[in-house]
């Protein structure tokens, strides 16, 4: 009660105390933050108004995904013995554990329902919240809109505070909606709410990670990239922790996604673990504010260094390669590190065969070697899909260059517009192909080091190569959509997410086969593995090339759209 006046003084703009409209009337004794936060409420309202569709769509989409999975599982496994058996299959597969995590209580319906979504969903939430934080901080600053806002009676730290409020509101809504959705789907109330809270706090934490990244990098792209690297490290760390002999290993405790899992919402809920992401957030948010207060508008942590006074770029293709290079290098570094880690854990798969039933199943499949192969094939599929996303992101350069007016300058030179578009598409496709091969090599190196089999390097690189055509189809889809409808960039991402969701949950949701077959990833051969079928690869390649040709041809016939 007694603290209320002080808090009011610290948060409210000084103008509210003094009726004078002149900002000069602001008392100097209001503390450093009092002025810096002035107008945060206004900025917050603007931000919420801007995202009035996006935020509800995200929260409802993610909560709906959880609800659908819970509902489907409740219907699929009505009896306890079935659940226990299913849980044992999961816990017996290192591939499943590495990708999704363990089921700690085989009798728990909630654990079985959510085993895929706990960590995987947390990763999706991490992406969404980091993006949300960057969107309302660095992206606005880069676009110059923050300058416009900053020139009004708005404190220096107000936009960041507003962005954090947007993150907190969205996280709260997500936690509540997910909890209620799971409860409605038939899971216990307390566990459902704990699960929602675990997701919500994860979102909050990655929002804070995004806010810090936004202070370090000078572009929204780079800031989102930094946050995604943190997310990837967290995901791999928890995979290592889950694969440990005595799970969870120490690596899980270093990972925010590991914390999400360790709440164990449906098997002896551990509410106290929610303190970990909250604490981390409480550390990161002040760090972001301090970084913000120490830099100029538009600047990053590192000042811009002067570059060459003369350039060697000579054409549209060279420019496309130059523009896409930083992201490619970032992905390459990430893929190499992750690949070696994933490859080296494959060997430990055999240690998971602790149930007699699993041993029988594995023997029927072709022995322990087959199990390792299955694990590696699953890893390659995962990597191939993720790198298809990198390809879609690379194609984003086309609408970005077009809308910004930079393409206009290029196309006013003696550059054929189809050649310009093709340049970006080809660089994106080559980039994806090289990245997938690198991933295969890295997984191969990791595995070869673990088992002492140098031949595995080339074998796995070759296996990875079979994942390239499906990824290229996604690049082709993105190019075609842009050529036909330059503002439809989101559609490529929506299809990408839909295809991934079909692959992960399509069977669970009972999606008919023809619909499942729309996903290019479904047609990649399962290699390494017994009798893979490569027949679809030429078709996938032809489809990818055809889609690129369609997009480039359409662009050649339509107006260049600037806005």
């Amino acid at each position, binding site marked *: 009660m007694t603290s209320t006046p002080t808090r009011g003084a610290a948060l409210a703009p000084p103008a509210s105390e003094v009726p004078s409209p002149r900002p000069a009337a602001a008392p100097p004794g209001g503390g450093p933050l009092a002025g810096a936060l002035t107008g945060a409420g206004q900025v917050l309202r603007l931000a919420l108004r801007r995202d009035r569709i996006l935020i509800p769509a995200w929260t409802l989409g993610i909560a709906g995904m959880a609800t659908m999975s819970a509902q489907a599982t409740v219907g699929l496994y009505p009896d306890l013995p079935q659940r226990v058996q299913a849980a044992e299959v999961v816990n017996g597969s290192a591939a499943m554990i590495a990708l999704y995590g363990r089921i700690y209580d085989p009798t728990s319906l909630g654990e079985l329902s959510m085993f895929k979504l706990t960590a995987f969903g947390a990763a999706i939430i991490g992406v969404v919240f980091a993006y949300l934080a960057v969107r309302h901080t660095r992206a606005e600053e*880069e676009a110059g809109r923050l300058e416009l806002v900053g020139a009004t009676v708005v404190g220096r730290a107000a936009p960041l505070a507003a962005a954090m409020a947007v993150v907190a509101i969205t996280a709260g809504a997500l936690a509540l909606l997910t909890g209620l959705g799971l409860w409605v789907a038939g899971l216990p109330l307390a566990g459902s709410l704990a699960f929602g809270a675990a997701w919500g706090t994860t979102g909050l934490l990655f929002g804070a990670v995004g806010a810090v990244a936004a202070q370090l990098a*000078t*572009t929204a792209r780079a800031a989102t990239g930094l946050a995604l690297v943190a997310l990837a490290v967290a995901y791999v760390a928890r995979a290592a922790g889950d694969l440990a002999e005595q799970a969870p290993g120490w690596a899980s405790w270093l990972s925010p996604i590991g914390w999400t899992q360790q709440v164990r919402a449906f098997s002896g809920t551990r509410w106290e673990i929610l303190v970990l992401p909250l604490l981390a957030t409480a550390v990161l948010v002040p760090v972001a504010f301090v970084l913000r207060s120490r830099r100029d508008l*538009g600047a990053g942590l590192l000042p*811009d260094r*002067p*570059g*060459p*006074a*003369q*350039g*060697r*770029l*000579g*054409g*549209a293709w*060279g*420019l496309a390669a*130059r*523009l896409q290079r*930083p992201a490619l290098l970032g992905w390459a570094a990430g893929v190499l590190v992750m690949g070696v880690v994933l490859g080296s854990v494959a060997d430990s798969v055999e240690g998971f065969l602790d149930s007699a039933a699993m041993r029988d199943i594995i023997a029927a499949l072709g022995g322990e070697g087959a199990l390792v192969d299955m694990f590696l094939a699953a890893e390659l599929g995962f990597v191939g899909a993720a790198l298809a996303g990198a390809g879609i992101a690379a194609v984003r350069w086309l609408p970005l260059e077009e809308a*910004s*007016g*930079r393409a*206009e*300058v*290029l*196309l*006013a*030179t*003696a*550059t*054929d*517009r189809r050649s310009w578009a093709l340049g970006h598409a080809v660089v994106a496709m080559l980039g994806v192909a090289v990245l997938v091969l690198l991933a295969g090599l890295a997984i191969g190196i990791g595995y070869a080091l673990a088992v002492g089999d140098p031949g595995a390097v080339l074998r796995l690189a070759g296996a990875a190569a079979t994942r390239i055509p499906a990824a290229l189809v996604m690049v082709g889809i993105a190019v075609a959509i842009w050529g036909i409808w330059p503002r439809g960039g989101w559609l490529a991402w929506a299809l990408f997410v839909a295809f991934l969701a079909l692959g992960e949950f399509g069977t669970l949701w009972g999606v008919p086969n023809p619909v499942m077959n729309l996903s290019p990833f479904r047609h990649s051969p399962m290699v390494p593995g017994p009798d893979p079928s490569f027949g679809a690869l030429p078709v996938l390649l032809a489809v990818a090339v055809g889609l690129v040709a369609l997009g480039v041809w359409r662009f050649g*016939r*339509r*107006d*260049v759209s600037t806005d």
Partner: protein
Amino acid sequence: MTMSAPAATPGPLATDAAIEVRGLVKHFGSLRVLDHLDLTVAPGEVHGLLGPNGAGKTTTLRILLGLLRADGGQLRVLGGDPWHDAVALHRRLAYVPGDVTLWPNLTGGEVIDMLGRMRGGLDRARRDELVERFDLDPTKRGRTYSKGNRQKVALIAALASDVDLLLLDEPTAGLDPLMDATFREHIGELRAAGRTVLLSSHVLSEVEALCDRVSIIRQGVVVESGSLAQLRHLTRTSVVAQVRTVPAGLEHLPGVHDITIDGTRVSAEVEPVGLAPVMFALAGGGLEALTTQPPTLEELFLRHYRDELAPPSVQAGAEPAHHRRRWGRRSA
């Protein structure tokens, strides 16, 4: 073929013009941005495309570049079709957009060199000289340049190329007066070298200072086109005279407007046709002092935009509204 300009049916396009446009039509959705626009730019002339924001200047330039496709009409740029012969034509022309955005990671120097090479080569010495004269730091990254400096990067890239035709969309919008003067010098050099320049602007003084010929564009139509001398011919000279006795019937002479007589001081706006009779009459009245002011382009401009600048409903004055609209003048 086309149901174009009411004045003349478009015949075969003249091949000797640098730019020849007849009955150009462009829609954005249901909005008609260009409505049978005609434009002729002769080789070697500096031509101004004058009009307010949203009149269709940028759209016209983008169509001339083959970035947008015309919905109707005929056009030739340097003897070619801008849509089909884009690449070949672009070797011979350079373009500076109105709102220049640069690649955040590339330095100004890199952008200038890249654009020059993509246009088919640039004159290294000239490029360095331009960088010097426009006082540009070419080592800075695109994201750190101010609006004026981004403009300079695009201008230098365009001016350093050896091309026949320059298309400039509001080229001096972000330049300071000093750089503006440098820019004018360069346009003068280009004119002397026989290059063709088409520049859009809504700044009258700029067009007056730079251009040989002007086309005034309004709501997607060119409403007036000609040399500055021709256009001035359509406007009136301000005359202020001190006489011993005011000649009778001065106000009834042809081409005399807005006449005020204050004792022995006469001021009036006179059309070219009325100048000689007015001078005779004033001389007969014992002319003691005379000030004449040549017509400015602004007057012409205002005449075409009078409707927008001052809606008739707001106008309250002795003159009939139609008179004001026809012969608009700066409001006192």
